[in-house]
């Protein structure tokens, strides 16, 4: 008789996913019959008739065990890739992470190269998604100065993946003498930075998010100067809006003052 598929359902966080990985691995049920599903809060999945479902409660200790074992038995790079995947907005990520770790235990550190294996391909793709989007935001994040003492720089973004932790260090290094906030509207979290204390990321209450979003207006003197420059530096004889759109997709533009009216 065919063995039933067993589905581990977990919270959509690094902690939740890796706890599920731990439980699934310990169960010795057989990798081919195990699926993992990460579920955002308040999400209801259509259940499959012939599968068995197991709810997993996140457990910090289990997460740390998995990360430590992966780093020791496979490699640090694999460990980083897994963390990266967990921040990606892809439905199959928990399943991919689980099977990637299974492959890693079989092959060792060279698993990162083995792009013939579908699981490795997916990890590679998700890592590329995250690093590409993080790079876009290093380019296209715009700050405006809030007239306070000391002045605070504010930026609002709406990324597809949860990339805030991948851009925070870049701006903390670059703008180290500044106070700044980067508010991620899509995932309701924000980076706070001050010159003396460095940076941290915190989840926001809905009210805090509304307040930050309301402050975004781009009414500064330097916005006008920037728009002037932006228009003047373009060569009319070479106008090419398609090329511009390829490099700078429209969905980024809502928070970029040079494209506002």
């Amino acid at each position, binding site marked *: 008789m065919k063995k039933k598929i067993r589905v581990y359902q977990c919270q959509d966080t690094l902690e939740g996913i890796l706890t599920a990985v731990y439980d699934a691995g310990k169960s010795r049920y057989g990798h081919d019959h195990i699926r993992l599903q990460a579920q955002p809060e308040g999400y209801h999945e259509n259940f499959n008739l012939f599968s068995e479902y197991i709810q997993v409660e996140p457990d910090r200790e289990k997460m740390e065990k998995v990360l430590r074992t992966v780093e020791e038995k496979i490699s640090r790079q694999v460990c980083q890739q897994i963390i990266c995947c967990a921040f990606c907005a892809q439905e199959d990520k928990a399943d991919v992470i689980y099977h990637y770790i299974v492959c890693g235990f079989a*092959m060792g550190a*060279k*698993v990162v*190269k*083995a*792009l*013939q294996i579908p699981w490795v*391909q997916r990890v*590679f793709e998700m890592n590329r998604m995250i690093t590409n989007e993080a790079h876009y935001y*290093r*380019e*296209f*994040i*715009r*700050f*405006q*100065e809030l007239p306070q003492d000391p002045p605070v*720089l504010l*930026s609002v973004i709406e990324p597809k993946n949860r990339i805030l932790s991948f851009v925070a260090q870049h*701006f903390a*290094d*670059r*703008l*180290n*003498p*500044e106070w700044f906030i980067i508010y991620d509207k899509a995932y309701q979290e924000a980076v706070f930075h001050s010159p003396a204390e460095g940076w941290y990321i915190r989840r926001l209450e809905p009210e805090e998010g509304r307040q930050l979003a309301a402050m975004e207006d781009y009414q500064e003197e*330097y916005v*006008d*100067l*920037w728009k*002037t*420059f*932006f*228009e*003047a*530096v*373009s*060569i*009319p*004889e*070479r*106008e*090419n*809006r*398609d*090329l*511009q759109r*390829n*490099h*700078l997709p429209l969905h980024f533009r809502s928070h*970029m003052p*040079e494209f506002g009216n």
Partner: protein
Amino acid sequence: MIFEEHASLQRKLQILSDAAKYDVACTSSGVSRPGRKGELGNTEASGICHSFSGDGRCISLLKILFTNECIYNCKYCINRVTNDLPRATFTPEEICELTMEFYRRNYIEGLFLSSGIIQSPDYTMELIGKTLHDLRTIHRFNGYIHCKAIPGASPELVEMVGWYADRMSVNLELPTTQGLKNLAPNKSRKSILTPMRQIQSGMEESRKLLGMKGGNRSAYWHTSKRLGRILPGTEALSGSTPASLEQREQKKDMVSEKKEEEELQLPGKAQAGGLTQWNRRDTSRGFVPAGQSTQMIIGASGETDYEIMAVSEALYQRFDLKRVFYSGFINVNQDASLQALEGKPAKLREHRLYQADWLLRYYGFAAEELLSKKRPNFNVFLDPKCDWALGHMEQFPVEINRADYNMLLRVPGIGVKSAQRICAARQTGPLDFPHLKKMGVVLKRAIYFITCNGRLMYDFLKMDEDYITRSILGEDQAVLKNFGQQDIQYRQLSLFDDWKRAEG
């Protein structure tokens, strides 16, 4: 002429960024320098584009001229002395303010400062130097600065600027000496190459004594090293190969090119004199750590693609440049002595030159492999790599699971990254066509030139130059249908006929 001496900052910015827009050597790459406590900014080796203007070009740096007043009369240049247009000049303080405030808001990656010539090259260079000095020391700016060296300025001033800038560039302006003589009467090849040589030897000296300071070597240097080629004028990288000897033999009968190369050979280090300001300048960034670049105008003086590529190659080899930029000529002055153009810049030609430039720097091609005296221009319908492969069918097909890295790089549709991924992945097991697709290989190009485990992708593919040319130009729809490439635009038959004629 309208001098706008008391113009607002906004008006000045408008005039002076408008005047700088034709400059194309505007990248922010080449040096990775972490932030410093209390200083604004850092730099990334890959460079960062912060926006894209309406022409699709990247905006990375605050690209401005110090002034658009100019005593010279270069025929191609919008800012030449005989043109009647609004003129303005920044003060160093204004430039610092704009740079700092734009940088804080993440609008830009740093400053790109060029200038028209006011009074004399020395006077202009001094103003640029003063601006950079203020920006680095008073405003404590640690971001990227790209700055022009003015031909004819004294070596002391060029050196001073080099200690503040990350990248410097001297514009070659035109690919040939004759072109320069005709179109830029106030400039000479020698006055352009002298500061270029000075910066090159200064960089070498700085690297020897201070280390790389976060800067990297050029792609051309790395490629030459990988292939074991010797760069003239630099130390031997490793043993000579028969290939390079053969190339030198070939060169003997290329008279015009030889002449061009002699032009690019300047009296070397003796004249440069070395760095002299170690004690007076902040050496913590090194001297021009991100290297130097140049640009030339394409299509204003009637040179062939072959001449242009030979000049680029010589610049990479002898002057250790990071990049050469090609700027399709726009006849802004409607000057009668310049080639009449239909208002549109030669974008496709420019594109082909950039493609070939990449082949030189990353793929290990030599200019003579791509073009020859008999065939001095690139094929408009095919990219240079594909064109080369079609002319060398005896080297194909290439077996993906065995071919060495350098040969993989020569396959159309395989780039640097996918070649690296292939080499890594095949250590863990054999590869097949679907895997390649996932790795980023452009299969619709590559299928004609590769086998996996001894098999072509489709049995009906023929290793025949005409057949492949026709297929790639979109005639053979069977191949493309198999890939579900509905978005391909099929060209008309007549186009292919045109191409045949151009070849013959």
